[in-house]
């Protein structure tokens, strides 16, 4: 009964979040399918020069061609591969780092946790994008570096969320109970803390994918990614470096990859939102 009387502001409408999540899921699935079946879907090999440079859309090239005559539609379709891979792998890096640090810091809040959280704080306070750029510039351009840089910089936020969850789990009585039974920390962490953190961690992971996709695009756009990798960000990099957004070409060269980035990021953000609502309904 408390549910209704104590919190008059809370109105359980999980359906909405769920529906948004489904919409997001559909968006992600579509993009994943596009990435997987890129060779079937794309009319051309995106690395091959199949037309004259700077062609506007035509029957042969629905989105025209880029500056060296590669088919933009094919680039766009293949771009899903790199963008999604970077997003997901970077998020996995962040997930592993964030969960490890979050769980350790949450479970050992005293000395170890303090040190860990201090480093998390430092990372969170440091100016994010400038640091990202400095790091990316330092490491050089490759897909792997992009992934590492993004992963290494975005784990701090999730690790904080996970830590506070673990911190609360840690004092949850069933964890205390297992400790009073004489269970080693490992037991409590593996049996009680991790399973109860998994959903939250997955939620932050999905959110991290969304962030990572945007960051990859930004890095590629700034020319700090590998411009020869066919990602949506690098399509925009070429559009920018060859001035396409100042010409009519922005309609087929700038708009579509940006929309793809947005859809990808949005898809994951919606799923993350739905998951967050499930974990901690606030809608």
């Amino acid at each position, binding site marked *: 009964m408390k549910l209704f009387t104590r919190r008059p502001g809370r109105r359980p409408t999980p359906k909405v979040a769920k529906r*948004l999540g489904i*919409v997001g899921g559909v968006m992600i699935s579509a993009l994943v399918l596009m990435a997987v079946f890129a060779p079937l879907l794309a009319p051309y090999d995106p690395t091959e020069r199949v037309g004259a440079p700077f062609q506007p859309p035509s029957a042969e090239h629905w989105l025209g061609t880029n500056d*060296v005559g590669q088919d933009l539609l094919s680039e766009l379709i293949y771009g899903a591969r790199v963008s999604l891979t970077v997003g997901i792998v970077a998020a996995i890096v962040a997930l592993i780092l964030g969960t490890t640090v979050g769980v350790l810091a949450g479970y050992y809040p005293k000395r170890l946790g303090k040190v860990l959280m201090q480093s998390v704080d430092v990372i969170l306070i440091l100016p994010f994008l400038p640091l990202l750029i400095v790091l990316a510039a330092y490491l050089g351009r490759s897909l792997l570096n992009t992934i590492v840089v993004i992963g290494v910089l975005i784990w701090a936020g999730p690790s904080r969320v996970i830590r506070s969850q673990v911190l609360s789990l840690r004092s949850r009585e069933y964890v205390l109970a297992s400790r009073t039974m004489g269970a080693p920390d490992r037991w409590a962490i593996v049996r009680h803390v991790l399973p109860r953190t998994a959903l939250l961690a997955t939620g932050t992971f999905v959110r991290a994918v969304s962030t990572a996709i945007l960051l990859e695009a930004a890095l590629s756009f700034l020319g700090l990614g*590998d*411009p*020869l990798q066919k990602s949506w960000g690098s399509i925009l990099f070429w559009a920018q470096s060859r001035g396409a957004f100042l010409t009519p070409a922005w309609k087929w060269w700038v708009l579509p990859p940006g929309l793809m980035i947005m859809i990808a990021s949005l898809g994951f953000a919606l799923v993350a939102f739905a998951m967050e609502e499930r974990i901690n309904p606030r809608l």
Partner: protein
Amino acid sequence: MKKRIAIPILLLCLALVAAACSSDTDDATTTTGGDGGSSDTTTTTEGMTEASVLRAAITGDEDTINPYTYISGFPGWNLLMMQYDSLMQLDANGEPQPWLAETVTTNEDLTVWTLKIVDGVTWHDGEPLTAEDVEFSLEYFMEKATGRFSRDLSSVEDVTSDDTTNEVVITLGATNPSFDLVALADVPIIPEQVWAEIDTPGEATYDISTNVGSGPYMLVEYEAEQFYRFEANPDYFRGAPQVDELVVVVFADDSGALAAIRSGEVDVNFERVSPEQIDLLAGQGGLEIAQGPEFTTQMINFDASKAPFDDLAVRKAMSLAIDAQDIVDTVFLGAATVGSPGWVHPDKAVYNPAVQPEFDPAAANAMLDDAGYADSDGDGVREYDGEPMAFELITNSSDSLRLRIAELTAEMLAEIGMDITVASVETATWEEAVWPGFDINNGRNYDIATWGWSAPIQANTIRVAELVNSDPSIGFLNLTGFSNPDVDTLSAALLTEADEAAFETGIMELQQLIADNVPFVMLAYPDGAYVYNADVYSDYEFIAGQGIVSKLSFLPDSARP
């Protein structure tokens, strides 16, 4: 629910579509639209030859433009020379002509140069410009290193001046046939009354008051990273400039500058327009493109000091496999001249037309087969010394055209069984690999690389010796570690050849030698293309190899050499 999501996206799309639709009709008017970019024009005839204010765009700040602070060779030096004069001035053909020096005479072996300075030239501060100022300038640069100008004058042994005759005599340590081009047309003359007080120019603080020159323009205002304002020097000794005020706006990158010229916020772009913009811009309102040959180069370097590039067959095959014409057409959209394998630009007087680019992948494959580079394991990649011919082609990421060149080159080399991976790296990393510490004595850390030289090296043909001679003191720009005794001998001899005819014969021969031995693969000389708004001002002078950014563009025709 789907509807709810759809709404914002739909709205966004609508806005974009609306903008997209409107663009076609608006294009015609945008040149006069925009904000605050209205430039006052004084005549209304087609193609303006006079303007009260001209706004020009450059990319990147050039600091306080004086001989010790300007940053880039282009357009930094060109802006510098708006305020200063050199003893000689390049004409439309890129040939040095007397300028501050009324006459330039030289002795037989080209070691003593006598210059008669124009009488009655005054500095911006009203002081007369005398032969002593010239002597002072040259000695100052030789004494206090600036890099470029010190190097220009490195062969100078002695400078004397005579104020009564207004003559300067420069004595060189050795024959230097291109001293006029390299030094006299390059070194700015600075006023003694200003610079005599500056002991350590590297550490001095400069402001506009130190920017006293004798040139057609005077810097009157400078906001770092934002703009320079030059005012015309009405008393300029060759005649008052046709543009009263020159505002040079600093942009972060090309696209900003392009947007600005399209919207009418600036009237000319001092930076080259990249090839894909040429047609687009040319179609816009009053925008026109000044296009012409330039002496910058695009090439492929390799480390010829190590296997397999030490083998002429490999180098030759690579050169045959790379279709320079395709690169010109695809990357430069035709706005470039196909590179001559003998280095020299076809527009140069000493160009050897017998040396022609060849594209013949079949011959290249045959050449490699003959030389024993077989693809023994059938993976499409040849081997050498048991290693697959797989290499990294390193290029600087900040140059998107080079990135594309690298991409295309890799594609072409794949046809002859070479597996090329393009590595796009930070400019500094790329420089460090190709030219470690900017000193070829440090060796090389690359297999294949994109490269290019700036205009001055091509402009002075004999500087090719610096690229191909294996003696580090001569060939200090020999980045490919190339070594060929014939090339060495000939290039060294030509450096001091005072006889014009002998030099011409020699340089023709050298071009053939270079083409035969392939120290690098020449790809193209991109054309200079400059966009300007003809409704504001159109009387630009295109100097071959230099473009339109020079004082000539703003002087009346009568004042031009």
